């Protein structure tokens, strides 16, 4: 695939994704019943991501307080995840940044935070 085709495909894919996300976030609230978490449906416990859909929809409406209330972890993790994905996709362009960002400290902290948040919210 040449670079121009790839560029066009990337732009189209990002455009489609943007439209889908826009429509999805505009549906507020989601139909009834909302997209239920399989883990929650099966066990009754919240998973680390439960509430993230409502949180992002609230954020989209500009209601930061409500978003924080639904799932603060999702609000913090989203920009972090986007940043890490960009770093990883561009790891051949910025190998030093990749190694610095994906340090053992960061990786272990993320693991501990996710599991910690999961336990904490179910207490």
């Amino acid at each position, binding site marked *: 695939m040449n670079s121009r085709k790839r560029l066009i495909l990337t732009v189209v894919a990002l455009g489609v994704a943007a439209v889908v996300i826009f429509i999805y976030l505009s549906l507020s609230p989601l139909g009834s*019943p909302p997209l239920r978490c399989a883990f929650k449906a099966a066990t009754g416990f919240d998973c680390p*991501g439960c509430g993230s859909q409502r949180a992002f929809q609230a954020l989209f409406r500009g209601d930061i307080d409500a978003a924080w209330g639904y799932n603060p972890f999702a609000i913090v993790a989203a920009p972090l995840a986007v940043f890490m994905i960009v770093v990883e996709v561009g790891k*051949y362009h910025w*190998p030093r940044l990749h190694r610095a960002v994906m340090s053992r400290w960061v990786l272990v902290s*993320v693991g501990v935070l996710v599991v910690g948040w999961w336990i904490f919210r179910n207490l």
Partner: protein
Amino acid sequence: MEYWIIVDGKAQGPYGIDEMIRRGVTPSTPVWRQGMTEWVPAATVRELAEYFSVNESYQSQQLGYSTPPPSPSAVPAQQPGYGNQPNPLYAEERPAMPSTYLGWNIAATVLCCIPCGIIGIIFSAMVRNKYDYGDYAGAQNASKWASIWLILSVVLGIIQIVFAFVINIFSFL
């Protein structure tokens, strides 16, 4: 070239190579010099590794080994290294770290509502851990598993979204 070293848990330096060796640098001592992204075992730095192999061949001559030791300049970069590191290339020549898929796994954990993403995050951390210990094949393998768990959580996430939509449609009828 001057190096900083960590001996007895304290960073010291900068020292020239002779000074470092006098201060008890071993092949596994963490060292750093300007231009390096992180601390690395001394044996993985080419000019220090050469020093250690000179020393070693000297010792083996003293012990009367029959096979002649390779001359230090002829030691190829892929020569098995020291300690438990299976195949440490010199720090300057290490392969790029494999993808950790950490960002993707965080996104999957938050968005897909399937806790598989957490297992992916654990494999992400293993990628770095194995890479730091010079286990490049292991890092590659952990990277593969991080991506497998990522794909699994995305697929399960999509299945449950489709499932939820079907339920929604039926509830409207």
